[in-house]
């Protein structure tokens, strides 16, 4: 069998290079606002609880500190870190994305197995002119999501991928 070919004889290990393209800089704003939308209501709720409900203060302090930390990290650290990590690339054979901040994930899906391609735009993304590309394969766990793309780029990609997918024979399972 030819399975051994990928292990190069010299023992020099191969590694994955990162995908070519970064996401838009506007994604920084998108991630920051998302963190605020999640963190601020929780923080506000705990503060209200702290003021009104005296008996619960000892443990509400813990929750409040947690929420405050989460919000600060989510605003000050997470977006920049994500921007430094997130990358994507679409070739004629595969879709390749690197995502995450604390936990990083490299995902590669072959174009021949793609089942659906969607460019999704939430309200925030519409304001910022961003779009999220959502590529699903026959595996329920195998979807690839690339957020923070320019809306035109995402639309073009979706169209291109759909065209290529239609030309590929087979039932993609």
């Amino acid at each position, binding site marked *: *069998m*030819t*399975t051994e070919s*990928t*292990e*190069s004889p010299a*023992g*020099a*290990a*191969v*590694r*994955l*290079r990162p*995908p070519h393209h970064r996401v838009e800089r506007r994604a920084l704003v998108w991630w920051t606002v998302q963190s605020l939308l999640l963190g601020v209501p929780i923080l506000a709720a705990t503060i209200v609880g702290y003021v009104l409900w005296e008996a619960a203060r*000892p443990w509400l302090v813990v929750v409040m500190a947690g929420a405050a930390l989460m919000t600060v990290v989510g605003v000050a650290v997470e977006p920049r870190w994500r921007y430094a990590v997130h990358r994507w*690339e679409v*070739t004629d*054979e*595969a879709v*390749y994305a690197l995502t995450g901040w*604390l*936990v*990083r*994930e*490299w*995902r*590669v*899906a*072959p174009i021949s*197995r793609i089942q659906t391609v969607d460019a999704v735009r939430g309200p925030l993304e519409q304001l910022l002119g961003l779009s999220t590309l959502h590529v699903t*394969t*026959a*595996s*329920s*766990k*195998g*979807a*690839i999501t690339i957020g923070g793309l320019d809306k035109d780029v995402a639309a073009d990609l979706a169209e291109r991928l759909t065209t290529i997918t239609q030309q590929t024979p*087979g*039932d*993609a*399972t």
Partner: protein
Amino acid sequence: MTGRTPGDEPAGIEDEVARTTSPVTDQAVAGPPWRRLHSRMIWVDVAQSVLALTPGAFAVWVLGVEPGDGGWWPLIAIAAFGVLGAVSDAVRWVFTRYRVTEEHVEARTGIFVRSYRSVRRDRIRSVDVEAKLRHRLAGLRVVTIGAGQQSAAGEAALALDAVLAEDADELRHLLLRRRPAPVAFVDDARPGDPVQPGDGGEPDDGGAGSDDESGADGEEQVFARLRPRWVVYNVFSIWAYILALGLLWGGHWLGTTVGIDAAGFVVGALDWQSLGWVRTAGIAVAAVGAFGVVGMALYFFVEYWGFELARVPGEKGTLLRTRQGLFTTREVNRDDNRMRGVEIAEPLLWRWMGAADTTVITTGLDVESMSSAATILPRGPIGVARSTAAAVLGTDPSPLQTPLARHPRAALRRRLWWATGVTASVAGLLGWLAVTDVIPPPWVWAGVALWPVALGGALVAYRALGHAIAGQYLVVRSGLMSRSTAALQRPAVSTVAIRESPLQRRLGLRTVSAMTSAGYGVYEAPDLDADDAVAFATRAAPGLLDPFLVQNDRTA
């Protein structure tokens, strides 16, 4: 297309004939008549109603229970439940029609909400024939047609409840024998095919098909039959206690209804006071456990009586068939062309006795359901599981028996860190609760006592790790409570992912996931050495990662 082939053959010689016959075929396409489910169901429903009324009648006329007694309501409930069930079943019969056309299986049902369902015949992946006791007594069968429903989306398979046993057989043959669409992956390790899997990778859809047709004359290959001693592997579980308690409670309740004081008999049988509560509890646990074990053994035989796993020929491609059941018989046929691998799971608590569950990794079958169609063997000895899996895969040597590569020691360290971290947070939480007087202080020690258990678990989980590439298959093994070894066909892998958490980055580890449309959808090799991870991922999905690889220029 395929349905017309017989008519097309003379058409090649005489065009006129073809033209005159074509309206007939078109009519056939337009639809055979709709059929009802079998009318014998009505009689079954009547019998069920009578049976449901019997306990009440028995209580009133024979035992002389006065209506209005406390024990009266359950009998009414039984009667009402049985009769209503039977009536609704009969109503369903009146409004249900089905038919099998050239392209589809269609069913219409419902009174207020009329529903129409059609399943494309080339999408049909399994046809189950099942019969509960009442069906068997009436010679009826329930046919369930599975067509790769998305179980997550809550779609159910199309069930015909019920048709005559002969009709069920006929339906099964009809629906599984014809396979018009070419299949993306041909299991190139066909049984009885001595050719090596890699041998030329012969593009022989037709060849393999004709092979099977020649062998289609009832030649079946039996892989496993029930061995009574497997019962040992199936009686010891927590379900034994749940079953026993349920039965005992039910018996007690029934006893009080007809005036037998079972509890009083047990209380009077021994002088419990003098035994003390420890012995009393011991005797109770042992007695209930023994009762439960007997119950589980009976259940096992009722469920798996006459169990047989066999590969039977279809017209194109073969089927993996299981038959089982004493009162309720169940036959499941799985299309071999949909099979992508095999998984063997060994539960931690019974690993010393070598118990193993065997399932096939198949597209379009629901793996999460309790009586999963993916299960091809009852729980039994690991040796039988391995040899049966090897026979089912048809590859030699079996991918499930290839020696697996150990994972680096760092993987153990990661698990030890996690065990310590979890223990520390539990102990910390308990400590805080103790300080704030929510719980008594000694409880904190319970948190600390968790540590050795967690460390032991970490070691067990580490020792379970393993991975390998064996021919066409990728093999991964992992799991603490249930160590599962999965062999998955590499061409079936679609998405490949490599994941790295902060702790993994520090320890130089990465997790490789191979996503597929079959089975659980994702099969993971956790905590490989960072460099090995890329190599393993590259081999798991041949060719997929190649454009994105670079030589590691850093000196290793």
